[in-house]
């Protein structure tokens, strides 16, 4: 398949830059949307002066205004401040979840793709079992076994992502181990581990990283879902899913409690998906 990147190889450098998928307006917008919560997570104090845990004497259920951009919640806390301070926990949980899926899934896929035989059969049947269980059911089961809390929710979501990474890693590995440069590496005396580290993993990493970015959006959504259901961080610690969950009783009287945080979560998920798609596009 001809990709825009390949087509542009022969073009002058400026044209190539202009046609780069990274510089398209939608991609730039997606990058900005992802960047904002990352900055919220790293430097929350720069973005709000409000206390996310204590509303003081501020009235509850105030609509959005200049002082409270997202209004105040059911006990008078600033919803924007809670979103800003909640970003760290929500994004960290998503990163842990993707990391769990990426590391364990890749390990399974690479071992299965290089070892073949009964090891491959056993590993890939385990992956088949994981695929056959609906993600939310699997993560709920895991979180009930591990106990409530953000890290446990992240681990639960990560476990549901293992299968996808394992299948992709195996497929990539199967292609790479048959290539001439791997045969040449073995021919020049490299052992199995060396080939795995220097040839298989670097060459399989592109699609895996693209999947990781795509999974990030999905993980944010899944973690928010589990927090919404009450399995995540205990109150009053802010976390995106919990903030939406706490506001759901007031949909008719204070829509901003659910709609504005919901838009933030949706925007970050869509933007992350966009970046993942671009990464995949570039990789191809």
């Amino acid at each position, binding site marked *: 398949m001809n990709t825009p990147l390949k087509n542009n190889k022969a073009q002058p450098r400026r044209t190539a830059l202009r046609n780069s998928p990274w510089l398209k307006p939608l991609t730039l917008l997606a990058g900005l949307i992802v960047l904002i919560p990352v900055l919220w997570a790293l430097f929350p104090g720069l973005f709000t002066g409000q206390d996310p845990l204590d509303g003081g004497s501020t009235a509850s259920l105030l609509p959005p205004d200049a002082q409270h951009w997202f209004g105040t919640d059911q*006990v008078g806390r600033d919803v924007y401040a809670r979103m800003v301070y909640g970003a760290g926990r929500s994004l960290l949980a998503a990163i842990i979840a993707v990391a769990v899926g990426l590391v364990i899934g890749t390990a399974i896929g690479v071992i299965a793709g290089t070892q073949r035989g009964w090891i491959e059969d056993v590993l890939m049947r385990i992956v088949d079992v994981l695929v056959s269980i609906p993600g939310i059911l699997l993560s709920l089961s895991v979180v009930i076994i591990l106990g409530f809390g953000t890290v446990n929710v992240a681990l639960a979501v990560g476990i549901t992502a293992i299968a996808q990474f394992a299948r992709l890693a195996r497929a990539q590995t199967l292609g790479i181990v048959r290539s001439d440069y791997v045969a040449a590496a073995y021919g020049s005396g490299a052992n199995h581990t060396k080939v795995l580290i220097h040839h298989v993993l670097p060459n399989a990493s592109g699609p895996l990283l693209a999947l990781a970015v795509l999974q990030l959006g999905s993980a944010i959504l899944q973690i928010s879902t589990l927090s919404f259901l009450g399995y995540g961080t205990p109150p009053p610690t802010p976390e995106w899913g919990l903030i939406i969950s706490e506001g759901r009783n007031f949909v008719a009287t204070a829509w901003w409690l659910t709609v504005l945080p919901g838009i933030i979560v949706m925007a970050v998920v869509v933007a992350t998906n966009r970046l993942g798609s671009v990464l995949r596009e570039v990789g191809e």
Partner: protein
Amino acid sequence: MPPSSPGPTRRAVLGAGLGLTGMLLLSACTHPDTAVPAGAKPVPGGVLDYFEPQSWTVLYPPAGGFYPNGGILNNITARLLYQDPQTLKLYPWIATALPRINADATEYTFTLRPGITYSDGSALTAQNVVDNFELYGRGDKARGLAVSEQVTNYAGGEVLDEHTVRFRFSKPAPGFAQAVSTMNSGLLADATLKLDSAGFGPGSAAKIATCGPFAITAERVGTLLSVRAREDYDWAPPHFKHQGRAYLDGIDYRVNKEYSVRIGSLVSGQVQGVRDIQAPDQARIKDKGLQLVAAPTNGVNNNISLRSRHRLLADIRVRRALIASIDRQRILTKLFTDTYPLATGVVARGAAGYVKAPDDAWVHDVDRANALLDEAGWVRGADGIRVKDGARLALRSNTALPQPRSKEVMTLVQEDFARIGVGLSINDGDQVQQDLDSQDIEKVQVYHAMVARADYDVVASEWSINNRDALANHDEESGAWGDEEVERILARITGSAKAADRERALAEFQQHVIDQALVLPLFEEPQVFGFRQEVQGFFTEPVGRPTFYNTWLADGAGRGEEA
């Protein structure tokens, strides 16, 4: 792959347009709500669709204190006496007259009305009435049926003749006459008295035979309980203007835990009644022209108990600091409306034995709270939570699910505690989990609750170790007490023959919990109902449970399910 995504297709635009139009059309299909002319006469017919926030758990009458249970039991059972919700005066109901009581209130004699039958066809006899109170007064551990917290010091019952029964008590039982008027003393048929706790639980409701104006006819566990009017019901309290069958054909008690679903169903006209309208929605309900009924509960006020038997709360200075840290007015301003008045005593102003607490009883003073904790040797740790001898001053509270906005109340208390360096985590979980955890003092040290009952005994119902034991005051294994004096005073309230003595003991109880910083009353808790305009004649019994006997539907149609 194309360099950029194509714009929305014609089909997508058309789909979105059709969807939006459909939503607008559907939103216009809500049930119209028109006012009923003043003076309209009751008309029979129709099934009331009514939403509860929680599912009922057990229909054993002594367990009727839990609101979803009580809301059903109050309508399916009849009692020996009837208590007027406004005056709290007692009237005959199944008994032909008020009981004859001996001088020290240890013997109660009732004469029974003839011709009363249960919904299974069996007759209400003198022996059956005695058997009811034998069960409520003694309980049956083998069947998992508890002693009624309202029938104290029970010594036995006897049949004097075909229509006369007598109950005896080992100590004065001045609250018994009122107790037999509550839904906790609802009368059950002989076959029903043989059920075990599972037989009174979800899935078995249709087996429960009662002699109230409605009888259970169908059940879908966790979502619906249908009761239908008994055509042969002809034993309403004699002083009622309305006699005979209930106006309604029946009531469908629906359950949905999602508040927004319940309130939305009422506003859109999908149901006709909802219990537990929260403060933020009260204005909206009125604006929509719907009826808002705030019924006082005439019992113990919504309150927080500090369990002094726990090592972290054993020091009175810590308890005083916690009470001083809580800003009750802030809780009311932020979460509630004028229908939730600030508590001025342990019991509500309309409750039996109300005494106004001294003005300085529960003063909010953060500086004093901090000073008390400093004096007690608790110093702030790195995370802001105070520590002493390696122990963190971190407590845990329950969530009182039947109480309005309990989680938000405790969230504000959590904020107040954090300001003085005390940690508070709020127990999550469903009613069963809350009940289990609340019995364990290691899991819950700060207990949020309220109990409604229009009698002096209500304080014993909440704090006595024989009843709900909100203070978790006594450990049977070790024999340790949190505050033994509490139990001694409560015994005087439940065991004194004269009303004046009981009233004095209740005032003493209030002063004791103030002095010992054991209880912080927050506000007088009403039960707030919302109804469509067509629902008429609704009122509650003395502690806010719905009474549907006199309720009627102006359009007469109702929209219940076939049952």
